[in-house]
């Protein structure tokens, strides 16, 4: 974990409510795809945890949805503004288990963390299937970005207005070696049931600190109590204990 000041390079709308923000700063604490950052916003007491979409030595990219006043304030920020950010939070995805042709399933704002993961897997020479799920055509983002990485991309929409009609689980390839996923909890449950291999899923919870101090985001797993922010947000399929 590291606390540092980032400068906004760009902040652009991808859809009506989803924005992409590129920031420059010290990213040295970020060590894995699937980690998150925690952003301080003026006038808000708690920081806003947002997953990392992509990063390199000097830039951080986040893709976020406006869901409340904090993210609404973020959507109005412009290049040059500075943000106090805690980086390198959470465990992130473990790439070593992927096998040769993993499938990545992202739903809605669960899509962004799949991007850096796909990039890393492609770099390692894996064949990467990507399934991006949205409610409707106007909500789709990042399809071309995944294609540009060289992934085999399928888009699903619940209303059938674009791509394959249905949920991400309706588009699972016949053969895959492992899965990685991020999305709303009903989708994670569906992926858990529909997948035939092991895999990793990223979870969300309301957080206090984001770095393991407050126990605000604890959950029960088959391997003991875990903090979503510290031992998570990524859990292995074998350890997940669904609460009623």
């Amino acid at each position: 974990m590291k606390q540092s000041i980032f400068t906004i390079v760009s902040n652009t709308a991808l859809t009506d409510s989803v924005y992409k923000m590129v920031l420059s700063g010290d990213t040295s604490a970020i060590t894995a795809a699937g980690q998150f950052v925690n952003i301080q916003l003026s006038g808000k007491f708690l920081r806003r945890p947002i997953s990392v979409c992509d990063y390199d030595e000097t830039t951080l990219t986040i893709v976020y949805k406006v869901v409340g006043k904090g993210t609404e304030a973020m959507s109005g920020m412009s290049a040059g503004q500075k943000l106090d950010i805690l980086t390198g939070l959470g465990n992130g995805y473990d790439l070593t288990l992927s096998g040769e042709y993993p499938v990545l399933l992202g739903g809605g704002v669960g899509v962004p963390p799949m991007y850096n993961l796909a990039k890393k897997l492609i770099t390692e020479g894996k064949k990467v299937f990507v399934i991006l799920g949205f409610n409707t055509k106007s909500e789709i983002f990042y399809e071309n970005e995944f294609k540009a990485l060289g992934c085999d991309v399928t888009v699903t929409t619940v209303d059938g207005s674009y791509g394959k009609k249905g949920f991400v689980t309706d588009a699972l390839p016949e053969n895959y070696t492992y899965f990685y996923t991020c999305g709303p909890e009903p989708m994670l449950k569906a992926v858990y049931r529909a997948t035939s291999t092991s895999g990793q899923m990223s979870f969300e919870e309301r957080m206090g600190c984001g770095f393991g101090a407050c126990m605000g985001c604890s959950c029960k797993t088959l391997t003991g109590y875990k903090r979503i922010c510290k031992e998570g947000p990524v859990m292995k399929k074998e350890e997940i204990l669904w609460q009623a």
Partner: protein
Amino acid sequence: MASLNVNLCGIELSNPVIPASGTFGYGYEFAELYDINELGTFSFKGTTKDPRFGNPTPRIAECTAGMINAVGLQNPGVEKVIAEELPKLKACFHKPVMANVSGFSVEDYAYTCEKLDKEEQVGWLEVNVSCPNVHGGGMSFGTSPEAAAEVTRAVKAVTTKPVIIKLSPNVTDIVSIAKACEDAGADGISLINTMLGMRINLRTRKPIIANTMGGFSGPAIFPVAVRMVYQVAHAVKIPVIGMGGVSSAEDVIEMMLAGATAVEVGAANLVNPYVCRDIVRDLPEVMAKYRIENLNEIIGGVK
């Protein structure tokens, strides 16, 4: 050179700044960021006799200038705290630490305190009779003078270490409870724990916190905390630790003027993990600004 030293129940502190229980874990998360030996001490995560998972999530709700938490005393239980957490704490912190204890019966409190009493690094026992997030326990002991005194006596009987009773603000007369603890042998009083609060999600029309209510903390409660510290510090002779919404060196000085010998910092740690270190570093300059040479001069300065 300004003197930041204070004496808390017979133990010297290099400065009066103490991260509050439940916002600092067992220290080692923060030791990744800076040398936590810069702190006077810290109060580690509330410990109970048996392991506890705590409440269902969501446990956190944001508020204007603060937050509500309903963690529910999640901790691995006193045996595991001693066996697994204290060795890790010892590796990064070399001063006496404050052990925070909660319970569901008088016997629970005594059991846990007796175990922790044997730990060399434990300097003080901070006995929480004020947790608002656990049904039938914690706070119920802190809402009547008789029950608070009974816990105090039971704990004093099993330890030679200073016993600090942590009080709830969710009472009609906090002074009578503080005095009852003092009469029962308490060596110090810490206050305030969180204020009972609640938020509602307009979309779902349900409470945001799964447990419905939780403890409200953060800068919003600071004036209430200053008022209660002032009232209690003027009514008892034992040292008082002030807390509730403290987030700056100025706040520390204000708490001390109200009567606090030392000052705990809670919710602010969750937003800025460096806040306690920064307060310690800022204190000399802020003291100079207000012409304070020695912090001991100002304790209870407001009559």
